[in-house]
């Protein structure tokens, strides 16, 4: 599904190399976890794939089902089925959460040549999905992320993901700032979306999220490259020994 080859990326303003040759292939139906120390390039990888401005791709390719992602505008990547749950979701004052969701859902449907959801259909769907994430009607009315707690913001990201039904989901440190209960709720939301036709890239520092969202493959990223790939046991190894051993081993 997602295929990244020899991806080199710099920060546009600073001429600073962040990704130094990333190779990654994620098949449909699989959950890949990406772990690694701070500054290893995990979030940058997700941002570059979503098309956030400020990065310069120097070399390499990234395709989603054969489509060159790097050539597309951010909204075209979204319509192609890519989604990033952000580590720090942005506040949009004055814009109701529900309005935002409906505009996003219909924009994507339109881009794919589908009919827009009617108000009634949309409402029914959003209510059902919000309920699973314990998001109440009041939170749907409030302006997007404004005054949301850390946990509310992350649940809201998962709600967006559930509504947009992307095929390739990237979760960027969705567990950061969450207490155990909130993390379980988020994990349940994510697990409900696991499907043969959908793949996940879960970026995290900690094994604990992976107790709830069981990965098929675990990658360790360091200094802009994926340095080691293994099964779920690799995450446990990190949890027990930290990154030092692994980094020493591959150095």
């Amino acid at each position, binding site marked *: 599904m997602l295929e990244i080859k020899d991806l080199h990326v710099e920060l546009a303003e600073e001429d600073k190399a962040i990704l130094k040759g990333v190779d990654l292939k994620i098949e449909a139906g699989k959950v890949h976890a990406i772990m690694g120390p701070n500054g290893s390039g995990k979030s940058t990888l997700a941002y570059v794939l979503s098309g956030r401005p400020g990065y310069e791709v120097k070399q390499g390719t990234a395709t989603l089902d054969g489509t060159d992602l790097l050539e597309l505008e951010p909204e075209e990547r979204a319509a192609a089925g890519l989604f990033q749950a952000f580590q720090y979701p942005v506040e949009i004052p004055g814009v109701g959460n529900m309005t935002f969701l409906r505009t996003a859902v219909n924009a994507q449907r339109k881009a794919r040549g589908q009919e827009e959801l009617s*108000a009634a259909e949309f409402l029914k769907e959003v209510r059902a999905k919000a309920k699973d994430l314990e998001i109440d009607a009041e939170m749907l009315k409030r302006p997007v992320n404004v005054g949301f707690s850390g946990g509310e913001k992350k649940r809201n990201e998962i709600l967006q993901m559930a509504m947009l039904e992307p095929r390739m989901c990237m979760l960027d440190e969705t567990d950061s700032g969450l207490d155990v209960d909130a993390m379980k709720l988020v994990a349940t939301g994510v697990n409900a979306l696991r499907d043969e036709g959908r793949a996940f890239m879960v970026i995290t520092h900690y094994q604990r999220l992976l107790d709830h969202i069981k990965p098929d493959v675990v990658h360790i990223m360091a200094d802009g490259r994926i340095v080691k790939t293994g099964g779920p046991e690799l995450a446990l190894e990190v949890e027990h020994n930290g990154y030092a051993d692994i980094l020493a081993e591959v150095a």
Partner: protein
Amino acid sequence: MTALDHSQVKEGVDQDTVDAVREVGSTYKHGWSTDIEMEYAPKGLTHDIVRLISEKNEEPEWMTEWRLGAYDRWLKMVEPDWAMVDYPKIDFQDQYYYARPKSMMVKPKSLDEVDPKLLATYEKLGIPLREQAILAGVEGAEGAPAEGRKVAVDAVFDSVSLGTTFQDDLKKAGVIFCSISDAIRDYPDLVKKYLGTVVPVSDNYYATLNSAVFSDGSFVYVPPGVRCPMELSTYFRINAENTGQFERTLIIADKGSYVSYLEGCTAPKRDEAQLHAAVVEIIVEEDAEVKYSTVQNWYPGDEDGKGGIYNFVTKRADCRGDRSKVMWTQVETGAAVTWKYPSCILRGDDSQGEFYSIAITNNWQQADTGTKMIHLGKNTKSRIVSKGISAGQAQNTYRGLVSMHPKAKNARNFTQCDSLLIGSKCGAHAIPYIEAKNNSARVEHEATTSKVDENQLFYCRSRGMDEEEAVALVVNGFCKDVLQALPMEFAMEAQQLVAISLEGSVG
């Protein structure tokens, strides 16, 4: 519509808005002109032209004298230059001061006698005038139930009022809603009693000019205790070239009455700048309430700043009675230059004034707009919420005065003034003046200036919205407080305008 749709409108941009914007395609959708034979008075301004305008409107002698008095004053005045706007000097002798469609030389008795081309013009503007004309004009149609919410419309095309719809329903309620020229003829006592009492003839350069040459406009009188059964609406359109439009509006809300009044404006695309200098006077008696909403979408000029309307308008409400209330809401998206300060004189004790404003400037547009809240009575309250949005090379100034007079014990004002910048070549300015002449008055002022945040735009785009949808969503969110103050029909139109007027402002 379902409950959701309503909440959508209130909360921000919704899909219908975005669709409408898409359909529009070009930036200024009212830029066409109607090919109608016009009758002009000769260019320039003299005593004779003033007399001619008065004569064309079949006015009584006192009105002619009033106009001539204003003209003589105007000759001695100089154009104000304190506003933060810059435009080439206007040659007031190179303008037509009177233009009307030839088919209107004999005033139509009803809308059915109106040139179909004119009605087509209004249809293009989205005013359901024709349907309403049937209700208003055709015999036997009386008493027929009108569908949905009724809005009575008075349409002003260049200098002449075309006809007012729903006359019969209004008459039943005792409400007078007609063109000002009809009012001068049919209700001279009311006009004499109130005209020029809120905006005196000598008020300012443009108001004085308007007093001399206004050719038509609207008149509203709501009798004591009457709640006007429908929204009243005026639609102004400048069609003819090199023509100034000088309409005059006079609204009187007698004791304990209520009226909501909507005003919309458009003009065709022309390379030459055109002048619009209107005066609106509102008198609010004891316990009465007036809501006045404007969606101003005059042609703003092209991307290089060529053409467009000069919008020099004086609007003022006098809350004469105790507990009277006035609410100004304006969405200013058009015009090349805007100079406009809808104001409230809070004379009655416990009277209230509110001003809600969205001013959007794009490309080379300039707006210097705000309000004056003059607190004279005890316990008077005012509230100002101003949202200025600037894009392209535009300059957007909020200018406001809050004045607490010595007898205005316990008067209160709250002002919130927010500016949003899109891009790095535009400007936003806030010039609040506060005068407090008694120590029991309370004045609060909050101001913010922000830029449309790249992160917000990226967030929206990563969820599938294109750049223009994203900007429209964020800006509509920024304006939410004011959009909520608009009547429902206008809120939709205003949201579309927000999106349309910012097209091409990013990327």
